[in-house]
């Protein structure tokens, strides 16, 4: 089953199971969303899957209000960059509403959005997980497979806390084995996507795919890479990353976001704190070199870490 379809499956399961669930966002109704995730759903669910105006503050703010009244809203932002179009609602109101009101309210709400990729330009291509991760109160999921996309979406809707799910544009069409029916992918449990002994790579989504390809090439050189997919970055499975790095003694983080202040920075600092003395080599971060994401795909390809970049970096590190 494809990633987009797996998310649809999760949404449908929850819509059927719990009438507190509604799904909304720009063009998610009859049209099925710009990414096709909700295609066909209005047939079964009618107005429980509905279009909103082009009003991002409304989309997120409305989710807060619904959640305050016991609903379990699932909102879609067309692009992960648009967390900033709803900036106050996401970073101030969603994040602090529970805490500010003495923990009296739960906010069971989900905000789904499409991140990464190329050909969409500087305000439609960002992967905004580092911003969200720096914001206490928000859970942040980064599904890298259809299996995880479904299981994380199910977990997100059942979470009593606000969950932001960044779906990767380049993965929507990618298929893998997805069980029928109900299952949960737990938050805060990283996955070892490939076992290895020489170096740990932390990567997710499209960068994970590149890392897996790179790992096969490196294996030919005798370098066995262990690849950790964090799955969620809030909560972040520090133990899994640390355990792997303590074993391998080296770490490369590959991410599709600006290097400075990215998730890789946090992982670097965590390794200092929790794996000091175990590292034989310094951390390496492969990321977007503090540049907006351009429109032209060939420029994006030059900017974002490539399989070749990963191979080169690991080789240098292992030299």
């Amino acid at each position: 089953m494809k990633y987009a379809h797996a998310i649809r499956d999760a949404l449908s399961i929850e819509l059927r199971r719990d009438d507190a669930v509604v799904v909304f966002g720009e063009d998610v109704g009859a049209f099925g969303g710009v990414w096709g995730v909700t295609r066909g759903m209005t047939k079964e669910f009618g107005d429980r899957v509905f279009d909103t105006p082009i009003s991002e503050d409304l989309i997120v703010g409305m989710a807060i209000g619904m959640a305050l009244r016991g609903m379990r809203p699932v909102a879609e932002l067309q692009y992960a960059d648009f967390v900033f179009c709803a900036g106050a609602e996401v970073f101030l109101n969603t994040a602090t509403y529970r805490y500010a009101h003495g923990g009296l309210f739960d906010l069971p709400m989900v905000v789904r959005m499409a991140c990464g990729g190329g050909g969409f330009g500087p305000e439609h291509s960002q992967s905004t997980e580092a911003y969200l991760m720096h914001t206490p109160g928000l859970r942040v999921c980064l599904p890298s497979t259809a299996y995880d996309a479904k299981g994380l979406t199910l977990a997100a809707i059942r979470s009593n806390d606000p969950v932001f799910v960044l779906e990767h544009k380049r993965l929507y069409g990618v298929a893998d084995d997805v069980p029928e029916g109900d299952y949960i992918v737990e938050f805060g449990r990283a996955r070892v996507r490939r076992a290895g002994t020489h170096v740990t790579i932390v990567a997710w989504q499209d960068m994970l795919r590149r890392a897996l390809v790179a790992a096969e090439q490196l294996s030919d050189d005798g370098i066995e890479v262990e690849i950790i997919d964090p799955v969620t970055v809030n909560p972040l499975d520090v133990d899994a990353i640390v355990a792997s790095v303590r074993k391998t003694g080296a770490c490369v983080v590959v991410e599709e976001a600006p290097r400075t202040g990215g998730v890789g920075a946090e992982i670097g600092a965590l390794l200092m704190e929790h794996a000091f003395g175990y590292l034989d080599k310094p951390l390496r971060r492969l990321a977007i070199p503090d540049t907006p994401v351009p429109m032209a795909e060939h420029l994006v390809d030059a900017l974002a870490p490539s399989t070749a970049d990963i191979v080169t970096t690991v080789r240098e590190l292992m030299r």
Partner: protein
Amino acid sequence: MDDATRLEIFRQSLLSRRLEERVMSLAKAGEVPASLHMGAGQEVAQIAALAALRPQDPMLYGHRGVGYWIARGVEPEVILCDIAYREGGTNKGKGGPMHLADPSRGVLGETGSLGGNFVIGVGIAYAEQYRRSGNVAIVFFGDGTANRGQFHEALNFAGLRKLPIVFFCENNGWGLSTPTAAASAVVDIARRAAGYDMPGVTVDGRDADAVFAATRVAADRARSGGGATLVEANVDRLHAHYLGDREPYRTDDEKAALWVNDPLARLVTQIEATGIDVAPIEAEVADRVERAVTYMRAQPLIDIATVREGVYSEPGIVR
């Protein structure tokens, strides 16, 4: 409005006024933080509006004064403890008077960054409509806040979906130091309703009867499926914006002129005209306030060990 209702509005307004005066004196004495925005001059409108709703109707309040909470029966003790960051309040020092909450009374909080109330309120109203609860949401806000973008996104959607909500604007002629006429292209905020296909009405907010009547019409409309209304009450902010504000932007004479129209004094006249002596009510209120102060003083400050509580729900995920 019947005499009993007016009397109750008076009682609550008086309690609000005296409680707030006590907070001001306590704050000047350094006994509680000076964080409250004083509501004198506006509490009658707030309380009359809430009298026109049902006690369980969900409310997001504005930042000005204590009237909203008194109207909902929140005890003065509780209010003082939230202001003083002591045990016995609702939000455990996390939000102080900005974020008092009591879900059982429909007191659903407020966003500290202005504008969030609009869109969150729409989500609440959406939930009420979805559940066919018969509840009407009410959102309070100032004329200055009506210039935030969320006003637009929220009122458009409320108008579109005929949501059960009352947008209640307290137009006091100022946004902090800035006169409404220097911040708003139209000084009658209700004129904006036309852009959202909803009725907009302006009432004299110093007149409890007028506020009650207009809000009742709006609430009835909302409850019967007729959708949202923008109610604008012209009021006076009798005190400074907050305690530290020395009000260089208006003269003592200007302020004195406002006190001549003090809506609480008008209520006294109305009540006395029905043959009721307000002196015992004054005494009773004074006593009530002092009891609350005594209670507050005996309560411990919020324990610093609890500072991290409330960020996330427990358990995070419900199956």
